[in-house]
């Protein structure tokens, strides 16, 4: 008797192919599940670290704790304490816990864009290791909160600079004063000889000048505004009394003043650099800061002008060098 043909030979190895696909899918699904458990640290031995912060805004479960830019732990629980503070529990794998010492500091930073970051800093890795379940304070640094304050500070500094370099400011008046004196000195009845005639006084002046020169060393351009001012004052130069003392005092005054200005500007610049570093990733947010920086640059240029002018117009600066015995 003829056997029944087993099946219409439509598909070869149907069972095998389908079985393979099924097995592959099941393996993928199960494997992925185990993988997720693994990467979520279910199979890892961890120790607990509790951070207490006044405000846990931006902290989420699963957020990493980083040390030197490397994630070494993960937020596992957030709760409110009896005192109304945020209690953030972090699980740190035992093998990574060696980076945390009893002296470690923990900070929470909230940048403009992107998630907040919890960072650990350990200055001395020789300190005893952090015990399991340790509780530490979390220092909160908030870029969004700090920037308006920074900007406010920079504004104040700029206002000061503005006041110093204004037309009728004490700096300008002092400069005018200096011009008057130098004018007198360079005049027909100038006091040059008198100065050089007394060696003690001369040394005094030279020292003062050297100080001034060290202070103003790298500057070399002129301002028309001061030019005009000086030209005007040049014409009414006479007035022979007590010039030496006055010049000395004025010089010292201007020196300190300019130094002040320069220090202020440097401070402002540093503050701004900080602010820009914090907001470094953001294209839009730095527009404001850029404008502020431009203002500061402008002020620096103004001050440089003044210093240069002083340097150029001050007759002692060069002549003293030459004529010193």
């Amino acid at each position: 008797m003829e056997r029944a043909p087993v099946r219409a030979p439509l598909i070869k190895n149907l069972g095998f192919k389908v079985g393979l696909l099924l097995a592959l899918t099941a393996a993928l699904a199960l494997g992925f599940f185990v993988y997720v458990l693994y990467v979520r640290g279910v199979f890892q031995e961890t120790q607990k670290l509790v951070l207490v912060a006044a405000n846990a805004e931006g902290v989420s479960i699963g957020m990493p704790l980083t040390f030197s830019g490397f994630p070494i732990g993960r937020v596992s629980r957030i709760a409110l304490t009896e005192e109304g503070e945020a209690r953030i529990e972090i699980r740190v794998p035992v093998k990574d816990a060696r980076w945390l010492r009893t002296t470690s500091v923990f900070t929470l930073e909230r940048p403009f864009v992107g998630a907040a970051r919890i960072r650990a800093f350990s200055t001395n890795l020789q300190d005893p290791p952090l015990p399991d379940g340790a509780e530490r304070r979390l220092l909160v640094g908030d870029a969004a909160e700090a920037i308006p304050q920074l900007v406010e500070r920079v504004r104040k500094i700029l206002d000061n600079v503005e006041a110093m370099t204004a037309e009728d400011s004490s700096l300008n008046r002092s400069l005018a004063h200096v011009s008057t004196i130098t004018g007198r000195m360079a005049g027909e009845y100038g006091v040059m000889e008198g100065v050089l005639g007394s060696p003690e006084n001369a040394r005094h002046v030279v020292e003062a000048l050297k100080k001034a020169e060290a202070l103003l060393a790298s500057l070399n351009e002129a301002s028309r505004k001061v030019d005009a001012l000086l030209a005007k004052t040049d014409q009414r130069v006479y007035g022979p009394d007590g010039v030496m003392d006055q010049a000395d005092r004025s010089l010292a005054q201007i020196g300190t003043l300019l130094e002040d200005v320069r220090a202020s500007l440097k401070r402002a610049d540093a503050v701004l650099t900080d602010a820009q570093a914090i907001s470094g990733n953001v294209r839009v947010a730095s527009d404001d800061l850029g404008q502020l920086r431009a203002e500061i640059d402008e002020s620096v240029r103004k001050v440089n002008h003044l210093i240069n002018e002083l340097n150029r117009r001050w007759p002692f600066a060069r002549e003293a060098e030459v004529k010193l015995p």
Partner: protein
Amino acid sequence: MADDAERRAFLAGHPAAALVSAEMPLRANLSVLENIAIVPQYRENLDYDRAAHRAWKLLERAGATGCALKRDPDLSFEERFIAKLLRAMVTSPPIILIERPALLLPDTDYPAWLERTLDALAADFNQCWILDYRWNEPLYAPR
């Protein structure tokens, strides 16, 4: 059977009968063999090989093994009729009801052909009724 209404009433009165009817087509995407085998697969939970073997034996007895792997659209009227008949027969129901054979076998001298076919398969069914209209009565030989 006098008319269509009577036919329907008769069918309604015999719900357990296995029908061979123009209104009960074969499953179009299965071969004749599979169409027959599927019934014991479900009714008796047989595996495919045993069910197909049983279907094949029936086809052999009906002399229609040539159409075993064909599907419905490729069948002749007679082959289709045999497939339907065997499908009704394969689980040995008490009654097989062949309904309006003229509709299933338009090109055949069907009373004679039916008799031959049913004789060949006599061992495989209990009772077979042919349901036809009264005006076709002269076609059938008296039993």
